[in-house]
């Protein structure tokens, strides 16, 4: 067991090393969300959203960006890195070693958790000190649960998506497109309440809108503690089940 823990640490560190030596990944995973955070915030200083009962724009968009950046650290990173490693034959090589398959995934998830934690700290620090976001002790448990469930959900969807992608190079738009489209309809950058009903329903069927809304509730001073949104959590849990089934059914170690 002790040995397995050591292996897990080695796997996690090696996945981290790969990410931090990949400029494109750093740009998309860390720099892009922070840029959105800075520019979207700067261009909406002091704005109150009538459509959301006069909510402060900061209280709306910082949780939205937090959800957006966690989808990037979990889903995009996992889907693309696994697809690339399969394409290059690294997965096949690893399959031929004594490293247990679950340990390979555990290392990926471990590295993903560290990246996500980093983004949570960065986004919350910017939200708290550069903008007027309140971190409420009374809703902290809900915030932590929302973050864990949302990250788990988008991680497993990333692994499932890596199985769908055939070739890493062509895979990038297939991976990125759904997440970009969802970002625009799910009330991440601007409120979705002005959208037609069918579009709101569509967004709500996928796990980004529930992720953003549940985080928003934890920051919104007008929502009473503990601010758990059971419906949102159930939608995300449902997608965890879907992602697990798809991953188990379609995951491949070798390219076709």
């Amino acid at each position, binding site marked *: 067991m002790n040995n397995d823990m050591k292996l897990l640490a*080695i796997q996690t560190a*090696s996945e981290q090393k790969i990410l931090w030596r990949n400029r494109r990944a750093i740009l998309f995973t860390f720099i892009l969300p922070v840029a959105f955070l800075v520019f979207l915030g700067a261009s909406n200083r002091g704005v109150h959203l009538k459509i959301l009962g006069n909510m402060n724009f900061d209280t709306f968009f910082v949780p939205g960006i937090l959800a957006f950046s966690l989808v990037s650290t979990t889903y995009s990173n996992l889907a693309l890195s696994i697809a690339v490693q399969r394409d290059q034959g690294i997965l096949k090589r690893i399959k031929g*070693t004594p490293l247990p398959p679950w340990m390979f995934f555990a290392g990926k998830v471990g590295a993903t958790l560290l990246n996500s934690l980093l983004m949570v700290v960065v986004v919350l620090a910017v939200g708290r000190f550069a903008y007027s976001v309140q971190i409420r002790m009374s809703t902290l448990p809900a915030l932590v649960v929302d973050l864990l469930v949302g990250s788990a959900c988008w991680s497993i969807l990333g692994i499932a998506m890596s199985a769908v992608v055939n070739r890493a190079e062509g895979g990038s738009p297939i991976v990125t497109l759904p997440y970009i489209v969802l970002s625009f309809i799910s009330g991440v950058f601007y409120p979705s309440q002005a959208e037609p009903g069918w579009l709101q329903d569509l967004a709500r069927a996928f796990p980004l809108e529930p992720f953003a809304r549940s985080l928003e509730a934890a920051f919104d001073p007008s929502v009473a503690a503990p601010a758990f949104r059971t419906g949102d959590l159930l939608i995300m849990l449902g997608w965890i089940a879907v992602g697990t089934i798809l991953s188990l059914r379609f995951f491949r170690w070798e390219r076709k």
Partner: protein
Amino acid sequence: MDAIEIKDLVKSYGDLKAVNGIDLTVKAGEVFCFLGPNGAGKTTTVEILEGYRKRDSGTVSVLGYDPENGGRAFREHIGIMLQESGIQLQFSVREALDLYRSYYSNPRSTIELIEMVELSGSADIRVEALSGGQRRRLDLALALAGDPELVFLDEPTTGFDPAARRNAWHTIEGLRSLGKTIFLTTHYMDEAQALADRVAVIAAGQIVALDTPDRIGGRDTTTSTIRFLLPPNILLHELPPLSGIEHLDADIAIEGESVTIHTSRPDLALHVLTSWSVSRGIELGGLTVSRATLEDVYLELTEESK
């Protein structure tokens, strides 16, 4: 115990019988070479032995494990050098070896591995900056990281320059002297000739020949060819007769001034010829004796099965 034991192995892809009833035993400590054209079932067989593919029927034992469910314990004892498989491009040679070593309970040291494949000068170079041949050498080092008893080498020297190939052969000879079993596939006949204790030729999913490189396909008993240049001022009929001598069969032919003799007893034919030439003080210019090369035999064997 034998390192590899295969009985009546069958594997189909749809209607195609990729492997059609193979029996094979590889002894511990042997360098075994698997030859065959692309699509003959070579890779399928090797990947079944490595645990990458499931067989349809037959029994397979590799180091006493069934590769399909040998799991971690089985993989501790084998090393695999695939034809094409990536290495994390962002890692240096040393980092890649350190990572893969950590997967095994009794690995070789990183320094030793780097020296074995002569990458000492490139230990801190990133994989993405290595040349094709250097990357292949790192591939070999990664296959040896766990100090395996049995090493699968799939076309290990493709893309090597001649000096690098000799060095790789030297490394493989070194493994043999440590008592490791080596299962090699290659398209280079000189490689099989130089390294293998035994060679199997696979064609259309079946083994069509299995023997030492010197004997396979009857190489040791097939006819040899004697060639020399007709000495000046000597006519063909002035050469000593090769017919009517006991145990000697010989076909003689001439093209320009080049004489060619096909015979199953080159020793007798040469005795007759050289006794004659020495006693007369004549030199047989350009004299060579050759037999079918491994490549000749291989081409013949794989042609027959088409």
